């Protein structure tokens, strides 16, 4: 019961974050085009190319967030052994697997959201930190895939 409430909360959070992501990506694109036009008029070639690359990176990150992250999360969720053992441990394993998947999905979307914000203002360090956070989330989910059967074995399997 409580797990489904938390999952519903995470689902709502995912939808809100995806909507905000879309709005901010478009604003960042508009800001980059403004930067391109002003730099072009002023004759700042480097600034123009920086803005063009930022615009492309925003587009690529948006496509990754909307097309890549759901596929990655689904693939990782299928790799999680949710129903190891039997009895309460099986139910707990299933809840844990669902919660881990939800948390990882929201965390990855948040990291990509920060990446887009960072790319829109040219902040490279935040950009790398956000991508590292994305990798950490995937790695954590892989570790959880090994931890659930171990916990089932430790607590007793049928």
């Amino acid at each position, binding site marked *: 019961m409580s797990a489904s409430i938390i999952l519903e*909360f995470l689902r709502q959070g*995912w939808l809100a974050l995806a909507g905000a992501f*879309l709005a901010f990506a478009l604003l960042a694109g508009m800001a980059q085009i403004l930067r391109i036009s002003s730099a072009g008029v002023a004759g700042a070639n480097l600034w123009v190319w920086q803005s063009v690359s930022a615009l492309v990176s925003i587009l690529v990150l948006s496509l990754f967030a909307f097309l890549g992250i759901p596929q990655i999360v689904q693939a990782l969720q299928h790799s999680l052994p949710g129903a190891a053992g039997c009895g309460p441990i099986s139910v707990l394993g299933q809840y844990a697997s669902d919660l881990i998947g939800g948390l990882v999905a929201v965390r990855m979307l948040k990291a990509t959201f920060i990446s887009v914000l960072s790319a829109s203002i040219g902040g490279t360090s935040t950009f790398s930190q956000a991508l590292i956070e994305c990798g950490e989330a995937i790695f954590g989910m892989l570790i959880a895939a090994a931890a659930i059967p171990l916990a089932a074995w430790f607590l007793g399997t049928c």
Partner: protein
Amino acid sequence: MFDPIMEQILAIARDAWAFLAGLLIVVALLGGLYYVLQGTAGAAFGGSRMTSMAIIGAVGLVILVLFAFLFLPQIGEMLKNFQPNPPF
């Protein structure tokens, strides 16, 4: 659950979009005026390269503004169609 917050964020984002669009128009108009001045000056004292660069710049500016006002909303629509449901 997050709808009230989202409404606030989207209202601010809409205002920011309108502000950026207005600013882009102002910058484009000023840039266009600058290129017209450059082209006129070039034509007046025989600077053909200066005039050509001014014409190219003005055309580029128009293309850029068209890109911003036609292409970006289409990209937004495309991304809105791709907006995924929660994968969990």
